[in-house]
């Protein structure tokens, strides 16, 4: 039970701990509600600690490989198998560890926030078990190196998300949103499974590295590539398939809306992982990159224009989430389009860093904004902006948190949104000036939209006699605000330890493959 032991087994433990906690939650919740809250908070905090251990391990030792059920734990290729991996391999590179850190941070904030926010609801032990399972789904998606395993965790994630969206039955409206979400994500997952089946039939492998090595890029593989990118982009909420996003985000409880953002980003991780690691070596990355860029630009523009006309605070934020997803697709898409050319080192890598940095920034500030929206709804009881007003008189801290989030999403300098958006603008400008200008215009429109929200919800005469929200909700918001300000004031910390290694790991599929297929210790 030494430090090395924990470090070596951390890829498995980070998934097992919340899973075990989720299984035990209904049993504990039956005895005492207070014990359940402590149990949930402790397991979420432990998961967060393990995600930091993963970051440390990846930073010191490079890509970590963990083979389920092998002896020893890192024997990815058994000596008598002729060089093929046979078991499920968790492959944690910098990008995966980065995503795991993002997911567990937002889950910690959302979990603590929910303690007060869902206080009066029935069935809370189910709520928290589902929250933990949703986190497990995200962690499994970002840490696994096996395509079928990815599918299984995708299903855990989408079923748990759908159930949580339906949690406030809300006269059936929330259930309608959940039904829509569940149908869309099941179709997506089935199409993904169909693609996995084709790849299995062609190459008799399910491991991403093995498939990438055997990849001949036949015409069937092109179908698979289309299936993978389209379905995962659908789950991530990119434009042509975005209809579920405002409904799902809008009807979910506050803490869950924040976690749904990270769930979408886990799907986005899937898009990037599949297009870089599985198809990156053989496919024409210029075409694939431009596909992502076009998706991104469309998402940015349509999302923000739809957001301008909304008068429901959460639907408005949901359309902004679509629009911000566009920035990530744009940044990483430029990186993919230039992969392998001289331009990659000039500005492609910087664009990818911008896109990846935007993932964590977006998770933090959009999570914070959803939490403040939940706090407003918690006190006022409506989500209609036209009926709100003057909330700043009673809810000082919430107002401050909302301002931080709004300034950050608009890319105003002292906050983290500025750091990543600047990287994207600068590098994309060298790739194609028009795209960069669109991105800036979208940013201005975002600011305009949030000024409107701020004005109609928090400013003006006092209409409601509201108090500040309970402490646990404030703590949840505080956690996310801490990271927003930290990454805003010192972007170098994030760039050196989180984002830079993640972008390099993603752009280097050969190293990933060598690490997995290189055999055991």
């Amino acid at each position, binding site marked *: 039970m030494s430090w090395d032991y924990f470090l070596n087994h951390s890829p498995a433990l980070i998934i097992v701990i919340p899973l075990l906690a989720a299984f035990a939650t209904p049993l504990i919740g039956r005895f005492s509600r207070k014990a359940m809250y402590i149990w949930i908070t402790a397991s979420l905090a432990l998961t967060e600690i393990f995600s930091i251990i993963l970051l440390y391990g990846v930073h010191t030792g490079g890509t970590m490989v963990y083979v389920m059920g092998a002896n020893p734990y890192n024997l990815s290729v058994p000596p008598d198998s002729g060089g093929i991996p046979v078991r499920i391999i968790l492959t944690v590179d910098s990008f995966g560890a980065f995503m795991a850190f993002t997911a567990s941070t937002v889950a910690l904030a959302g979990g603590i926030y929910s303690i007060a926010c869902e206080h009066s609801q029935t069935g809370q032990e189910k709520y928290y078990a589902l929250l933990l399972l949703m986190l497990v789904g995200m962690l499994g998606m970002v840490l696994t190196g096996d395509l*079928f395993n990815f599918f*299984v965790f995708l*299903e855990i994630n989408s*079923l748990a998300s*759908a*159930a949580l969206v*339906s949690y406030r*039955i809300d*006269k*059936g*409206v929330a*259930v*309608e*949103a*959940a*039904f*829509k979400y*569940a*149908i869309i994500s*099941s*179709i997506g997952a*089935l199409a993904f*499974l*169909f693609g996995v*089946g084709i790849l*299995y*039939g062609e190459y*008799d492998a*399910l491991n991403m590295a093995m498939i990438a090595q055997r990849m001949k890029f036949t015409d069937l593989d092109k179908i698979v590539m289309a299936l993978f990118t389209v379905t995962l982009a659908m789950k991530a909420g990119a434009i042509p398939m975005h209809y579920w996003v405002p*409904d799902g985000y*809008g*009807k979910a409880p506050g803490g869950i809306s924040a976690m749904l953002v990270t769930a979408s980003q886990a799907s986005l991780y899937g898009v990037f992982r599949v297009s870089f690691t599985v198809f990156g070596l053989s496919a024409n990355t210029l075409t694939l990159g431009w596909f992502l860029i076009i998706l991104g630009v469309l998402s940015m523009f349509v999302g923000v224009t739809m957001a301008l006309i909304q008068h429901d605070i959460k639907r408005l934020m949901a359309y902004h989430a679509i629009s911000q997803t566009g920035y990530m697709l744009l940044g990483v898409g430029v990186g993919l389009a230039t992969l392998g050319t001289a331009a990659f080192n000039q500005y492609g890598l910087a664009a990818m860093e911008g896109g990846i940095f935007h993932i964590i920034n977006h998770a933090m500030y959009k999570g914070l904004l959803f939490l403040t929206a939940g706090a407003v709804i918690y006190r006022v009881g409506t989500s209609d902006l036209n009926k709100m007003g003057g909330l700043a008189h009673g809810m000082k801290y919430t107002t401050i948190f909302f301002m931080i989030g709004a300034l950050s999403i608009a890319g105003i300098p002292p906050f983290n949104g500025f750091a990543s958006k600047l990287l994207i603008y600068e590098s994309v400008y060298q790739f194609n000036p028009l795209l960069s200008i669109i991105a800036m215009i979208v940013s201005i429109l975002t600011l305009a939209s949030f000024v409107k929200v701020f004005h109609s919800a928090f400013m003006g005469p006092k209409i409601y006699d509201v108090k500040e929200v309970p402490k646990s909700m404030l703590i949840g918001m505080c956690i996310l605000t801490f990271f927003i300000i930290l990454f805003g004031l010192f972007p170098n910390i994030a760039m050196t330890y989180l984002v830079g290694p993640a972008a390099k790991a993603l752009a280097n599929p050969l190293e990933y493959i060598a690490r997995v297929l290189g055999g055991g210790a």
Partner: protein
Amino acid sequence: MLLNLPFITVVIIMALGLYAMLFKRNLIKIVIGLSLIESGVNLFLVSLGYRNGGIAPIYTNAPSTNMVLPTPQALTLTSIVIGVATTAMLLSFCMVIYRHYGTLDSRKVRRLRE
């Protein structure tokens, strides 16, 4: 051509499921369509592993050792259980929607946009 008969069946089943999902207005029929697509995918997975003349990969009193590929069967098993779980949850959503709306017609289940 007849060699690929299972794959053709897969395509037909999935097309039927897609038809049900796109053109039927009843929410339960949409769920049935989803289940059909899922059956198509499961049939596809299991037929990928077939080897001509192979038997089930179980050694207990087996007549020969020419066995079909076992992995697709394991994958199909997993995928079936996942499908059962999805279907159960979607049907329970349908029940709640019916309780509150009094209808399952997808043209009338539209209170989200109001």
